[in-house]
């Protein structure tokens, strides 16, 4: 029996009020397990990014509960929730959101610094993670000097530097060409995913569906289907 990383029960979320009210999520219930690479797919506006935000503790749902490794995250105080995100969840954003004024190594060290590690120690560890993603020689360059694929790998190194149990990736291939995008997600599956870690990927890129363990399809804010991965 795989260990549950995230459990969402009847999650609902809407934006706006009155005539402008848009329902983004309707009674979504799901489980994500350690050791799996879970895809959330669907057309634009289907609610997949909203669902990812709710699951990762950055957007409060209007209804339902979300628990991360048994902790009901939306019952936590804001500071405790931030601490949980810091220790349990790693983020890879669609636009990477790397700091252009910091070096690549310093960017990777950010979550370690947030975890109160001494600066030099954090930088040293960041270099180890840059080695894992194959960017040792780029450690002292600013991110703007790197290609899109390299920036994505820096973002992945940053996300895993704090050794989170859950890695969430928002449209990881959106800013990359087909081969690079597939290569990046393959890298995550082979090097980052393990039995103690769950990777949740929001994407509408069908070229990487073959790498998923399971695929949840969203339509109009609800879960339309769940299929096993490996289907292109």
């Amino acid at each position, binding site marked *: 029996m795989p260990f549950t990383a995230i459990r969402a029960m009847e999650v609902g979320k809407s934006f706006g009020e009155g005539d402008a009210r848009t329902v983004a999520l309707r009674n979504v219930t799901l489980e994500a397990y350690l050791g799996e690479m879970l895809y959330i797919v669907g057309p634009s506006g289907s609610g997949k*990014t909203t669902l990812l935000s709710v699951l990762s503790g*950055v957007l409060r749902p209007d209804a339902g509960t979300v628990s991360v490794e048994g902790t009901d995250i939306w019952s936590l105080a804001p500071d405790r929730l931030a601490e949980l995100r810091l220790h349990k969840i790693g983020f890879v*954003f669609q636009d990477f959101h790397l700091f252009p004024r910091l070096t690549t190594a310093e960017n990777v060290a950010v979550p370690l610094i947030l975890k109160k590690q001494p600066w030099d120690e954090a930088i040293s560890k960041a270099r180890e993670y840059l080695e894992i993603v194959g960017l040792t020689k780029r450690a002292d360059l600013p991110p703007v000097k790197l290609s899109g694929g390299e920036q994505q790998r820096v973002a992945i190194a940053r996300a895993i530097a704090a050794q989170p149990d859950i890695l969430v990736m928002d449209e990881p291939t959106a800013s990359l060409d087909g081969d690079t995008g597939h290569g990046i997600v393959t890298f995550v599956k082979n090097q980052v995913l393990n039995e103690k870690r769950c990777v949740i990927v929001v994407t509408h890129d069908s070229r990487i569906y073959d790498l998923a363990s399971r695929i949840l399809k969203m339509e109009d804010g609800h879960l339309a289907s769940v299929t096993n991965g490996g289907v292109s």
Partner: protein
Amino acid sequence: MKGILKLAYKLLVNDKAKFTALLVGITFAVFLMLQVTSTFIGMMKRASSTVYNIAAPIWIMDPAVESASNAIGMPDYVLDAARSLPGVSYAVPVYTGNSLVKLDDGTYQAATIVGLDDASLYGRPRLLEGNIEDLYGENAFVVVKDGDYPKLGSPRVGTEFEVNDHRGVIVGVADVASGGLFGTPTLYTTYNRTLQYLPNPRFTISYVLVQPKSASEIPQIKEQVKSLGYLALTKDEFVDRTSSFYMWQTGMGINIMIVAIMSFIVGLSISGQTFYTFVLENIDKFAALKAMGANNRELIMMILSQAGFTALIGYGLGVGLCSFMITMAKMRLPSFASQMSFLNLGLGLFMVVIIAGVSSYFGVRRVLKIEPFQVFRG
């Protein structure tokens, strides 16, 4: 927290254009504020130069005296009455006035004449050349070597001149704590010689200088002098009275205050806008930090440290620039009346703290409002 602060520091200083703009704004504001207040402080010190240079603990004067340079003559009985007061160790007269001095080349130069008590020479200046006893010699004067000294032809010991058709001779060159405000050189002589040389009004004592037996006697002495119809002020009170006169009754203070406020507004608007723009440009990064697990307290510390660091560096540069300008000006114009003090340095620091506080307030407000999920909006 140390790592967070270092992160904030790197994000700030690595954005060289913004950091430079912030520094320029604060440095300029501090420089402007310090420059005008230093000039004002310098002028105020010059306005009270007689008080600083003679340095008597208590000054008795006519109640209508508003500043140290506008003495009103008092009758001799005030001196006698002061000497008879309990609590007074001794009291001496002093004369301060102006006269025209005829120089060797036949030109005239206005000068301030200070007449010291003949018996004690109380309030005498420190001599650089000559002996103070020579002031008892015939026609003897001591000249003060300050910024206005060259206006008398830079006289040496033995130089002769005329005051109201009386022969005068320099017997000493002195150094004093403060030069005068009005750009006139200063000559010291004895009280009785001033009465012989200068046109005499009915009452000749400008001030009675009092040495109390102890500091605790001062309130009682002031009360007794008041009952005589005169005013006794401590040295500091007399300086304050003079400063207050120039500040509120000449328009000088109001104008200085307006310039200081303008420099504050200029600094605040340049730095405030630049810093807010800096925060706005990094708002997605702050949202990313929030999503990754930074709490509000850490983000506030980041912004406050960035604003505080910029403010302190800007303050240091402003102080340095102002010191440099004053030093340069004094090298060219020895009588340039500008002086920094702890008061205006403190005021400048207070101003930059306000600028940093206001600038970071809007940045903090913006960052606290940002929702971390906005980072997913791409």
